[in-house]
């Protein structure tokens, strides 16, 4: 039986695999992508031109040694693997070499996803996340000309700067950071000053954008994306006036939140984190969840960025080795380093917290559930008819029951219920997530090899 299965090949997973192998554990790492790196270091092992390296910047290329050390670590690597079920006995996955794996411990390092940015028209072709824009750059060196960047937070500013470095034209930046956000975040600034490098980096990004000739609007509200069959314009309010701009591409960003489906489906305990405005798995300093066989590392356990993710992966691997009976002393330096790496988090979380009207959209025509096209108006109607929460709402409308399994709508649905009922998001709760955590076919569940999946080849009794 394998000691440790790690799900996710981002910095947390890679770092945990390297450390676990050093400590003598048998490790299998599974990841959906064809190559390691997760999203932050996506495509890091592939050859890249000097121009591309310059555009993406040193924080990206810093991930290369981690991926290379992982590939040399002796861990079994299962790329293109979709883990659809986890439990105390092991896990099940589809993809090349897919099947069941008996393992003693599972470390979920599936990371973060973009916070849903539900505004009218956000489902139109031409609208993507800022993260998607960066992935297009990382995987394919592709840019969209004359795009509008909308939202707030470090990733939005970083991708916009990468676009400038690539020589791509940006039509406008619509910064939704509310007026007064900096003032509200000031109490957390002293702690953040323990990470001066990070703050300095952020200040430089903003300065680069302000000194570029890209139109930069602040305090943006009431964003509406318009078009017939595809995006053609964006409207917004800023400075007390209405604005509009023709555009075929818009990149949205309001921070990232943990992707909770794997840990929620496993029935680990979760809590509502008010500071991050997100549901987060309960975990101790080493990454143990409420389930003894299930551990978590990286942004999947709370947003803290790539360097913190790598440290938390190392810490988790060390604690897992101890848990499995290896005599491994606790490395206090690692824990101190992790604390130092997360010092600025409360400040950033408060500064870039989306305004209430973005967290809980007010316009009835806004699609909340993209898969099933359920609007905010349908939710308001259900609440008026007595629907008490997201799980009952599934029965009213199928919201949350599409292929994304609530990843794109859960956060917003919880917030709108809270907004309409006066309860807190913690009281409202979240969709009850179940295995399989990604769609699988009946043939895959039944364990039939793909070749037998067609009717004519199924053995008759």
């Amino acid at each position, binding site marked *: 039986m394998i000691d440790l299965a790690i799900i996710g090949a981002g910095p947390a997973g890679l770092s945990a695999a390297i450390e676990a192998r050093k400590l003598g554990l048998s490790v299998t790492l599974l990841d*959906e*992508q*064809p190559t390691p790196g997760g*999203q932050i270091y996506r495509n890091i092992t592939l050859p890249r*031109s000097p*121009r*591309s390296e310059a*555009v993406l910047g040193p924080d990206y290329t810093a991930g290369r040694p981690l991926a290379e050390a992982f590939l040399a670590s002796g861990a079994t690597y299962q790329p*293109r693997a979709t883990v659809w079920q986890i439990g105390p006995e092991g896990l099940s996955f589809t993809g090349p070499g897919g099947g069941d794996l008996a393992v003693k411990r599972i470390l979920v390092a599936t990371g973060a*996803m*973009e916070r849903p940015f539900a505004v009218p028209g956000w*489902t139109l*072709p*031409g*609208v*993507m*996340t800022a*993260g*998607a824009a960066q*992935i*297009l750059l990382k*995987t*394919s*060196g*592709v*840019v*969209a*000309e004359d795009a509008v960047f909308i939202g707030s937070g470090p990733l939005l500013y970083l991708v916009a700067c990468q676009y400038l470095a*690539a*020589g791509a034209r940006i039509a406008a930046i619509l910064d939704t950071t509310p007026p007064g956000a900096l003032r509200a975040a000031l109490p957390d600034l002293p702690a953040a000053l323990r990470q001066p490098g990070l703050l300095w980096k952020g200040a430089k990004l903003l300065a680069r954008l302000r000194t570029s000739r890209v139109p930069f609007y602040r305090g943006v509200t009431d964003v509406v994306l318009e078009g017939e*069959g*595809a995006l053609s314009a964006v409207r917004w309010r800023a400075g007390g006036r209405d604005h509009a701009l023709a555009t*075929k*591409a818009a990149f949205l960003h309001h921070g990232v939140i943990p*992707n909770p489906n794997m840990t929620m489906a496993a029935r680990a305990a979760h809590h509502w984190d008010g500071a991050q405005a997100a549901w987060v798995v309960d975990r101790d300093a080493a990454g143990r969840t409420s389930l003894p066989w299930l551990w978590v590392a990286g942004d999947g356990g709370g947003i803290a960025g790539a360097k913190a993710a790598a440290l938390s992966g190392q810490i988790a691997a060390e604690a897992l080795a101890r848990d499995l009976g290896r005599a491994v002393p606790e490395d206090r330096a690692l824990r101190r380093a992790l604390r130092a790496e997360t010092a600025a988090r409360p400040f950033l979380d408060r500064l870039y917290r989306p305004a209430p009207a973005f967290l809980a959209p007010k316009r009835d025509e806004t699609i909340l559930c*993209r*898969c*099933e*096209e359920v609007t905010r108006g349908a939710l308001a109607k259900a609440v008026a008819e007595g629907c008490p929460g997201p799980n009952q709402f599934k029965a009213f409308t199928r919201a949350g029951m*599409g*292929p*994304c399994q609530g*990843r*794109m709508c859960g956060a917003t649905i919880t917030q709108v219920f809270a907004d309409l009922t006066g309860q807190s998001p913690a009281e409202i709760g979240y969709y009850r997530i179940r295995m399989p955590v990604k*769609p699988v076919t009946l043939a895959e569940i039944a364990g039939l090899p793909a070749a037998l*999946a*067609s*009717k004519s080849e199924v053995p008759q009794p």
Partner: protein
Amino acid sequence: MFRPLEPAVQTVTVTLDGQPVQLPEGQNLASALLTAGFTPFRTTPVSGAPRVPYCMMGVCFDCLVVIDGAPNRQSCLELVREGMTIARQQGAAGVAA
């Protein structure tokens, strides 16, 4: 609308909605399709609304296409391969006959 910063090193022939098309070999499929101007990737089961990739990382499921006859493939998790057949997914995925 989407343009590559550098020209593709090597292209291969794939079949896209019945037509032969040259795409960069080994590139992320969703990104190659976007750059080639393929739109929409799918139409929704509920209203037939057009969709293209939103998140590019396997979370949103808007990039679903039919690859070599298999529906519900997340094109953002696939790579361009010589000879692959890609088709727009219209509405809900069909069950194999």
